[in-house]
């Protein structure tokens, strides 16, 4: 990993002289994955101001970009912010510089998995992963299976049981998953390996 932070990142962030090229490595990867140039952000904070989840994040959305600008990869990829982002696109819509922070968040999650950084919000990562596993298997998402498998993976059996049963009773959770015939084709779309995936 291209760690550039001093051992004690808490007290002082030391930018080493090699930070330039390495810092631009993170920037380059982000740009490659989602097309956004993090240097366009001028740190106005409008994204943070409008983000519905910012209050729960360990670092503010604008700080995700700031760290990325400095190439402080470890700090970005291990933040809870990148996982908590709900993908609502409020930031992108209002950003005066037209930076699609929502997409930068996507890219950071992808990078975190790629580089094997343990997601700070494990439950969210597991959910996304379970969801995609489901799509890969069936071509569609079967909500009952999804929820059940997800709950098993996170060992969180009870939190939504009540509403789950209610839904089931109202006939909203189909028992049998519907399958897509072109499943092979869909698997091909998944061709590139996703690290951290449960299905290797």
């Amino acid at each position, binding site marked *: 990993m291209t760690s550039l932070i001093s051992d004690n990142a808490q007290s002082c962030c030391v930018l080493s002289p090699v930070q330039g090229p390495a810092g631009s490595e993170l920037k380059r990867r982000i740009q490659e994955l989602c097309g956004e140039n993090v240097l366009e952000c001028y740190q106005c904070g409008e994204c943070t101001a409008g983000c519905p989840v910012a209050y729960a994040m360990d670092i503010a959305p604008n700080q995700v970009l700031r760290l990325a600008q400095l190439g402080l990869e470890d700090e970005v990829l291990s933040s809870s912010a990148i996982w908590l982002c709900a993908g609502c696109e409020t930031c992108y819509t209002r950003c005066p510089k037209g930076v699609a922070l929502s997409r930068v968040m996507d890219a950071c999650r992808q990078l975190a998995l790629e580089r094997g950084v343990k997601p700070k919000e494990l439950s969210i990562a597991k959910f996304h992963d379970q969801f995609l596993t489901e799509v890969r298997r069936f071509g*569609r998402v079967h909500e009952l299976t999804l929820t059940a498998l*997800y709950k098993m993976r996170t060992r969180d059996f009870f939190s939504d049981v009540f*509403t789950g049963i209610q839904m089931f009773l109202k006939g909203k959770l189909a028992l049998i998953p519907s399958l897509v015939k072109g499943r092979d084709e869909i698997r091909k779309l998944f061709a590139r390996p996703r690290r951290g995936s449960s299905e290797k």
Partner: protein
Amino acid sequence: MKYAYYPGCSLESTAREFGESTTLVAEALGIELVEIPDWNCCGATSGHALDHKLSIALPARTLGIAESMGLDVVAPCAACYNRMKSAEVAMKSDEALRSEINASLAKPYEGKITVRSALEVFTAPEVLKSVAENVRYPLRGLRPACYYGCLLLRPPRVVGFDDPEAPQRLDEAMRVVGAEPVEWYFKNECCGASLGISKSSITVKLTGDIISNAKKHGANCIVTVCPLCMTNLEMRQAAAGKMRGEDLTIPVFYFTELLGLAMEVPGIRKLFASHLVDVNSALDAIDQYQSMPAGVNS
């Protein structure tokens, strides 16, 4: 008018009412919806959360099939619509990506068809006019808070059929069917649906903010355009009420249900039974509700 219909995963299960009301209303308005054969999941939030390319490739497959039908696509679910539209825009603007993805598709998508949301289709001027002509029971007394959520409006560069900051299409449709939409201020705030299962504490808070604002401004129901919003708003309102120490109980409808109700489309009313939150308080507020013919009432 004929469209390729993309129900998406949830319209088959959790959001059955949305799917059914959409088809019923479309039929009543003479809009033909042909389900896209062998469609697949759009990948939803998880798709783009973990894999940018995949999030374009998945909808592209379905778009390719629709293109072979020669029809534009209607995707009622706001989340599906957002993903499909994003894929459409990406495939149209990035030639390299297009050929890369098309290489793995049985039916390539060349960007010849476009994706529309159900709200967009049903509130097109000529369609809305025909809705107005078909209204049998104006929903006077219903004061919905029109909730657009985030994915239908944002980012404007991709979707952009309504104003992202001051959307009007849904309010307009409600006025056409005789309801009196309230002025409120959270119509385009995010409810956190994508974290609904994995981080419900956040969803509960956001849902609470939204419902509280709707009630404060006199809404007697919320009307939505998205199954994810619906699930959240219904499932989390009890917990949110507890958290805020407020009574946040409020019925939630799909906008298509209300169009159908006003147009007296047979088969609409029975959908209300499957709502998780009892909708009777809202229905009772409608002046004419009791006088509507019992036949439709079943």
